[in-house]
């Protein structure tokens, strides 16, 4: 393969050699690239919640509301990050059964997965997940409902801030609402390979 490397790089150099001048990068400013109504929003959580609802995500501020939502949907068996479970356990009454290890051989058993978010972006209503903070990539992806827990101080107002703060993590993913497709006649269907419900649960200290 290194023969190909040398050939390709040599061809690139030869292609660019005749240029008397190489195009410089432009000076561009973040502010022009931020969506209207973002930077002047009063409360990042409120803006995040509004933009998340706009993509059919579900922002919640109380664990009791989460339990009610899961119960109403008939989703009573799921997974929770073991580091989060002690804090949440008391809110989940008897019919709920929750595992703190995700067994991928029984992937269809889990109706919901609760993991911790690394951050969020108010501008787009996106949750930020990372390998360090997500106890299982599959638990956050495969069940019908994904719940990401979030703290206020984790919310970035806009995309430039979130990019500037990309953690040194091999895998960071922004999740903006439930999975979807419009491949069949352009008709929007939610819940394709990923969750059909995306919840963000704000946990106050």
């Amino acid at each position, binding site marked *: 393969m290194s023969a190909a490397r040398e050939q390709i790089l040599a061809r690139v150099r030869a292609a660019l050699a005749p240029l008397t001048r190489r195009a410089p990068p432009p000076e561009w400013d973040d502010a022009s690239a931020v969506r209207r109504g973002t930077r002047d929003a009063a409360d990042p959580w409120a803006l995040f919640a509004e933009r998340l609802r706009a993509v059919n995500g579900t922002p919640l501020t109380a664990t009791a509301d989460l339990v009610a939502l899961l119960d109403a949907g008939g989703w009573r068996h799921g997974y929770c990050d073991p580091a989060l479970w002690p804090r949440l356990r008391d809110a989940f009454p008897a019919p709920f059964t929750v595992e703190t290890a995700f067994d991928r051989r029984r992937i269809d058993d889990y109706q919901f997965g609760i993991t911790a978010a690394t951050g969020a972006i108010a501008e787009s209503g996106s949750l930020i997940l990372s390998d360090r903070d997500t106890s299982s990539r599959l638990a956050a992806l*495969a069940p019908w409902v994904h719940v990401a827990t979030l703290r206020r101080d984790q919310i970035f107002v806009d995309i430039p801030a979130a990019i500037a703060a990309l953690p040194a993590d091999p895998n960071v993913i922004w999740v903006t609402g439930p999975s979807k497709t419009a491949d069949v006649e352009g008709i929007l269907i939610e819940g394709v390979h990923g969750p059909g419900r995306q919840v963000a649960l704000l946990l106050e200290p």
Partner: protein
Amino acid sequence: MARQRIDAYAARIPADTRAAVYLGTKTTHEKRTLLLADHFADADRLRRWAGEVKQHVLENLDTYLPQVEARLQANGAQVHWASTAEEACAAVLGIMQARGATKLVKSKTMVSEEIGLAPYLEQRGIEALETDLGEYIVQIDKDHPSHIVRPIIHKNRREIARSFEREGLGAYNDDPETITRRARQFMRHKYLAADVGLTGANFVSAESGRLVVVTNEGNSRFSLAAPRCHIALVGIEKLVPRDRDLVLFLNLLARSATAQQLTVYTEFISGPKLAAQPDGPEEMHVVFVDNGRTEVLAGDCREILRCIRCGACLNVCPVYRQASGHAYRSVYPGPLGAVLSPLLAGGNFAEKADLPKASSLCGACNEVCPVNIPIPDLLLRLRDRGKREHAAAAAAGTPPMGAWARLASSPAAWKASLAAGRVLNILPLGLIPVPALRAWVAKRSVPAWRGGEFRKWMRRRTRP
């Protein structure tokens, strides 16, 4: 004179295919326009900046490619290089064979179409399953995608339902939700059984070595959550200089492609999984693919390499809307394809030289391009090349212009024809054996010839 193939194709496509393509493209285009105006005070400035960033990368690729390779290796990824489609396929095969792997799941990457990866692997006993719903349907139908973002824009639900039934995914049911749920159920077990997840990359940051992969379905994420090995196929032009530049591109890509602010999943991958993470690849490979791109870089159409594969040009193009993607006989259709496909054909340029002719040069494509590619100018350059290389496909339907040029550089000859042309007012135009005239007259009337009238009037007016 031979007929242009794309025109003939457009005349033959079924009415409901044309209607599906027209509706799908127009709807997305109009939403895109509204969204950009709603979200930004000056979206055009963002497009121009993004274009300049990409032009800068292309003109400094000799610096950025080694830089990105070093970053990727420092992050724990293995970097491979492939000059040709064959080498790229062989690289993927080699990685799989080294692992004793026989099952691969792939998310959408046009480069994999370009190199013919799935058939190559299937012929060598490897299951290479498309996971994007549209691409999966294309695969089971042994069809080709007709749009780079909406691969089955040309299909309706009934055709899809029949295909699913044939594949054993259930009795005929053409409800879109049912179709989607069946794909969900079927695919998740395939991800879990696969050894390797293959993706493309929408962008690669030369600064950090991060790959950025965007989807709505979650299929690329699943391909990176279940299997233990990740292979990314990346065209050498997919680089951006810094992480910061991703702000521009991420803001423009989804809005241009699907009229969304962001796709559901925007994944930043800089290496194999963290040790403590139970899911995901332990091994990561990046295959940088040339396959003709360096030749394009060396030529006078290098701006086409800025393309971020959003499909906005397809959606606005009046020719694409009438003809549909398959008319272009290429992996890349539409305005993008009309430039890129003949160029990537290398020695077979002549075969695709008609693609740049299939355009009225309206310029709507450039107007929507998030990286401001001057597509009409590039089409014109390719027409010049098609003529100089005597490509028959380009010449079809085009009247020879040599005699006209002589006429139009001789005022005496020109004025004589202005007078002589009056004969057109009395001759039956449909019978005159000039192909161009007959093509016109079939559906359009010809205005009255008034050659010489204005000049006579002007002479009288300016005479003292």
